[in-house]
């Protein structure tokens, strides 16, 4: 559905994306992750034909974004970051206008606009001025706009930024449902969201792809796959030294709270050392009030991949 080959974009003075290549297949929901300024929006803007790349090529639904820009745009529903809208139009009026602009046949406009208003929960505000809507509703108008011409592909630039937790949950549900019929490329900073909705994740940093895989595989691959937390009274023993002797433990961080000490154990990938920790504590007669395993999250993957250079 999307094919990107060696895409490069240079602005005056700096390179936003370098030699980016990836593909998105039909029916995939792909999360596009990266720190601010990594080149996410730039890539999306190039894919939506808003600006041309400096080098490289890309195609949408088989149409080259530069040579056959109009056809590519017709197959694409794009929601820009911050969702710029005409504040002086009413919701229905705006969607009617956008539908006509995107080539929805005249007799189908009312039906399509009705459908997307229903889908995006805009029925209550359909007669309001867009300028008077809250951020959450504006975001939904943007999404309805992206959907109105039944595109094969949706590109959503931070669809949940600036929303409250309830709204984020609603948008997430909406995207999950849309994923059944559409191919979706979305960028976000909210990582749990990606774990829940996306079938694949592309992490970019400083204009380059750092990783591209399913969330599960990324989690499995990461070296610090979670860890174990132990909270215990160790008396005069040096708890950290003892714990480090357990095979599979890479590192131990200690924090004290009066007599109680908290040990955060980083372990080798795939290792589960909880039993050994328990045996050690039992042998040394430490009082234990917590022993738990912390699962690695996409956040750990993200931090590891995008902070590698700084460390």
């Amino acid at each position, binding site marked *: 559905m999307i094919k990107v080959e060696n895409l490069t974009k240079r602005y005056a003075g700096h390179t936003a994306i370098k030699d980016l290549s990836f593909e998105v297949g039909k029916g995939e929901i792909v999360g596009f992750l990266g720190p601010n300024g990594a080149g996410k929006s730039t890539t999306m803007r190039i894919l939506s034909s*808003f600006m041309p790349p400096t080098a490289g090529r890309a195609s949408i639904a088989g149409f080259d974004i530069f040579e056959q820009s*109009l056809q590519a745009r017709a197959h694409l529903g794009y929601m820009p970051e911050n969702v*710029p809208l005409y504040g*002086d139009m009413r919701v229905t009026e705006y969607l009617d206008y956008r539908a006509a*602009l995107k*080539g929805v046949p005249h007799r189908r406009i009312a039906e399509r606009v009705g459908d997307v208003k229903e889908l995006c929960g805009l029925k209550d505000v359909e007669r309001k001025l867009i300028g008077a809507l809250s951020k959450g509703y504006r975001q939904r108008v943007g999404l309805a706009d992206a959907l109105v011409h039944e595109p094969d592909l949706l590109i959503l630039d931070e669809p949940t930024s600036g929303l409250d937790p309830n709204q984020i949950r609603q948008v997430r549900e909406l995207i999950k449902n849309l994923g059944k019929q559409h191919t979706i490329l979305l960028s976000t900073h909210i990582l749990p969201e990606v774990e829940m909705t996306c079938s694949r994740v592309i992490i970019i940093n400083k204009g380059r792809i750092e990783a591209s895989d399913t969330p599960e595989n990324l989690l499995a691959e990461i070296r610090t796959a979670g860890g174990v937390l132990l909270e215990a009274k160790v008396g005069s023993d040096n708890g950290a030294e003892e714990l480090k002797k357990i095979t599979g433990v890479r590192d131990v961080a200690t924090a004290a709270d009066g007599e109680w000490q908290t040990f955060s154990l980083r372990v080798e990938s795939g290792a589960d050392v909880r039993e050994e920790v328990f045996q050690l504590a039992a042998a040394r007669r430490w009082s234990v009030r917590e022993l738990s395993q912390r699962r690695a999250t996409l956040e750990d993957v993200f931090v590891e991949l995008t902070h590698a250079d700084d460390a």
Partner: protein
Amino acid sequence: MRKFFTLLGREVRSYFYSPIAYVVLVFFLVVSGADFYLQLSFMNGKPVGYSVQEAFFNSVFFWFAFVLIFPLITMRLFAEEFKLGTIEPLMTAPVRDWQVVLSKFFGALVFYITIWIPTVLYFAIFQWVTKQPAANSLGAYFGAYLMLFLLGMFYLSIGCLASVLTKNQIVAAIISFCAITLLFFLGLVSFILLDVSSTTRQLLGYFSAIEQMGTLSRGEIDTRPMVLYTSMTIVMLFLTHQVFQSRKWRL
């Protein structure tokens, strides 16, 4: 073509959503009404060698209001879209650059024509009250409104170009105001500087909107301004289109 009309529809409606439209309309009604009233009072006192209609279209009042309205009409066309970022959803929809440029120009032209509709009423009322025609012939009306249309078209296209150059509406207004006033006063040079050579004076005369209006509002349909302003409008719109396209490479 359908997309062009969709865009045009939005452009025209957006004028009437914004307060600028009503400010311009009211300002223009006040000034043109005052112009009409003053011309009539003046003519009431003594016999003159021109018609009410000629007096109306050739007064200082009229030109003053005329030159001021163009920056107000055109400043927001592109600048506002750039500022609000709405250019992004607009240009990622399957529309061509020239469709956007032309829809904005014709949207402004439709609004400009709307402004002039009330002035037709002035002459109708005059005729109804005094039982006398306000102009010497129908051709005089035609000539005057043709001149308004031609000059308006040209000045609006200058405004389009000014607006596409910046994302600040005030800057756009200042650029178009300076360009239009400069062009307009170029035609006045021959009145002010008495010692310019007759060739220069004649050349400037060709560009003088005031002289052209004098001719056309008498009912002499001169084709030279038609060619001049139509071709200049096309040049300005072409430049606007070029600048609009080049924005992609400047991003």
